[in-house]
C-alpha cells in the first residue's frame, strides 16, 4: 500500500469512526504476526469508492466489536486473552462476551486459534495473560459440570460398546439423559451393543454429538462438529443441535464451514491470526454489510 492510498483509507476510517460506536483497537494495531495488512488492503478500496447517495455499507472491521445484547449474565467471557506457545502467538488480546442463550459461531480458517480458545474454555490450557470465564468462573473441573464439550478428535473409547459409553457419561454427568441418548441412537439405527470401533467415521461423529447433546448443560462447546462428514450427515448434526438445545443454553460452535451453519447462528465471531476480526449478531452483519456471513468470511479471509 502506497502512502496516498494509506492516507485515503485513514480518511475514510476517521469519517466512519464518528458514526460507529467506539471501536476497540483494530486488528492491524494488535496484529502479532503482521498478516492483517493484506485484509485491510482488500477492504479499503470498497470503502473509498462508496458514493454519498449509496446506502451505507459496513466492512467486517466496522463490526469488529458489536457487543451482543445483554440479557443476563455472560456464559463465556474473554478479557485481554493471550495464549502463546514458545514463540508462536495462538491468541492475542481476545476480548468478547457471550450472554446466555443463542448459538454463537466461532469462525475462522484453520490455525486461527479456534481450538486453542476452546481448550482454554475447557480448562485444558491456561492463558499466558488475560482471563477467560465460564459462567463467571475461571475454567476448572467445576465449570465442566455445566459445559458439554464435543472435541474435534476421535475421543470415544474404541474398545467400548455404545451402551458402555452411555453408562460412562451417565456415571460422570448428572445432567446426562440416558433415555434421550438411547432414543436418538435408535432413530439413527445405531445399536447399543455395537462396538464403537466398528462404527463408521460418520456414525462415531454422530454418537459423539448425541452424547454431548444428551446433557442438559448451560454451555455447549462444539469443536468442528460438521467437519469431515457428508452433507446429509451435516444436516442431521445441525438438526440434532437445534432440536436438543435447551432454551436458555448457549451453543458455542466452532467451524470453518460457514455456509452450512449460517442459518442456525445468532451471533458470529471471526478469529483471524488469533485476534477477533469480527464480533457481531448475524442479523446485523446481513443488515449492515448486505452480505451473507459466508460472503463476508470469504472477503475477510481472502488469500
Amino acid at each position, binding site marked *: 500500500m502506497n502512502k496516498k492510498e494509506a492516507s485515503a483509507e485513514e480518511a475514510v476510517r476517521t469519517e466512519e469512526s464518528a458514526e460507529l460506536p467506539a471501536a476497540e483497537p483494530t486488528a492491524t494495531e494488535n496484529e502479532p504476526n503482521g498478516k492483517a495488512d493484506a485484509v485491510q488492503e482488500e477492504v479499503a478500496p470498497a470503502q473509498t469508492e462508496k458514493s454519498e447517495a449509496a446506502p451505507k455499507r459496513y466492512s467486517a472491521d466496522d463490526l469488529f466489536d458489536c457487543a451482543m445484547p445483554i440479557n443476563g449474565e455472560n456464559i463465556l467471557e474473554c478479557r485481554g486473552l493471550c495464549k502463546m506457545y514458545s514463540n508462536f502467538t495462538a491468541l492475542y488480546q481476545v476480548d468478547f462476551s457471550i450472554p446466555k442463550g443463542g448459538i454463537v459461531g466461532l469462525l475462522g480458517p484453520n490455525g486461527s486459534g479456534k481450538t486453542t480458545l476452546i*481448550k482454554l474454555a*475447557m*480448562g*485444558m*490450557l*491456561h492463558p499466558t495473560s488475560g482471563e477467560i470465564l465460564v459462567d463467571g468462573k475461571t475454567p*476448572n*473441573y*467445576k465449570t*465442566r*459440570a455445566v*459445559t458439554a*464439550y464435543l*472435541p474435534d*478428535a*476421535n*475421543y*470415544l*473409547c474404541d*474398545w467400548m460398546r455404545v451402551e*458402555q459409553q452411555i453408562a*460412562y457419561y451417565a*456415571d*460422570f*454427568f448428572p445432567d446426562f439423559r440416558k433415555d434421550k441418548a438411547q432414543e436418538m441412537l435408535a432413530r439413527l439405527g445405531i445399536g447399543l451393543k455395537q462396538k464403537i470401533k466398528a462404527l463408521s467415521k460418520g456414525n462415531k461423529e454422530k454418537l459423539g454429538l448425541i452424547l454431548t447433546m444428551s446433557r442438559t448443560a448451560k454451555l455447549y462447546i462444539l469443536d468442528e462438529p460438521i467437519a469431515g462428514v457428508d452433507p446429509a450427515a451435516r444436516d442431521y448434526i445441525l438438526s440434532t443441535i437445534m432440536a436438543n438445545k435447551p432454551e436458555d443454553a448457549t451453543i458455542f460452535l466452532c467451524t470453518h464451514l460457514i455456509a452450512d451453519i449460517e442459518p442456525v447462528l445468532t451471533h458470529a465471531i471471526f478469529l483471524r491470526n488469533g485476534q477477533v476480526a469480527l464480533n457481531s449478531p448475524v442479523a446485523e452483519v446481513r443488515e449492515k454489510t448486505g452480505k451473507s456471513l459466508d460472503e463476508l468470511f470469504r472477503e475477510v479471509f481472502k488469500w
Partner: protein
Amino acid sequence: MVGKLIKHDLIALFRLLLFISCFALGFAILARIFMTTGSSFWLFMFIMSLWASIALMFVASVGSIVRFYKSLFTGQGYMTFSLPVSVTKLLIAKLLSAIIATLVGVAVFIVCMLILMSGLPAEQLQSFLDGVKTLFQNVGVMLSYDPLISIETILLIIISIPMGLLQYYLCLSIGQLFSKHRVGWSYAIIILSNIVLNILFAYCLMPIVDTFAEINPHLALWTVIIVFAGLDVGYFFLIRYLLSHKLNLLV
C-alpha cells in the same frame, strides 16, 4: 467420583486380565488333573500356567501404565479432561486402580501356584510346607525380638508399591510435552530416569543406609521410608502440575 473413575479403569484393565486369568487358572487345573492321572502332559500344562501367571502380573502393571497414557494423552484425553473431576482425583483413581489390578494379578498367581502345589507327591508337598513353616518361624522370631521392625517393613512395602507406578506416570507426563514421537520420548525418559535413580540409590542412599544400619536398624529403615515417601509425594505433585498446567493434547 474417585470410585467411579476406579470402576471404569478396572473395567478397562480387566478386559485383558480376565482373559489371561482364565488361561492361567485353566492350565493350573488341567496340570493338577494330569498330575492325578499320571499323564506326562502335566509338565506342559504346568509351564503354560506358570507363563500365563507371569504374563498376568506383567499385563496388570504394564496395562495400567498403558491405560494411563491412552486415557490421558491420546484422543480419549479430551473426554477424560472434560469430566467434572479434579486432576488430583484422576491421579488417585489411576494409581489405586493400577494397584488393585496388580494385586489381583498377584492373587491369581498365588492361587495357580496353590493348585499346582496340591498335586505334588506327598513327600515333596510336606518338604515345601516345612520350608514355609520354617520361614514363618524365622520371621516370628525376628518380630518377637523387635516388633517395630514389622511395622516399619509393612510401611516400607506400602510406600514402595506406588513408587514405581508414579515414576512411569511422571515419565509419560513429561513425554507428552513433546509434539512428536511422544511414546519414544517417554521410553527414553523412563530409561534415563532408571539409570539416574539406580546411580543415586547405589552411590548415595545405600552408603547412608549402611552407615545408619550399623548405628540403629530402625534409623536405616526410616531413612529409606522417608526417601521413598518423598519420592512418592514429589512424583505425585509433579504429575499433578504437568497435567493441570502443561497438558498437551494433540490428535
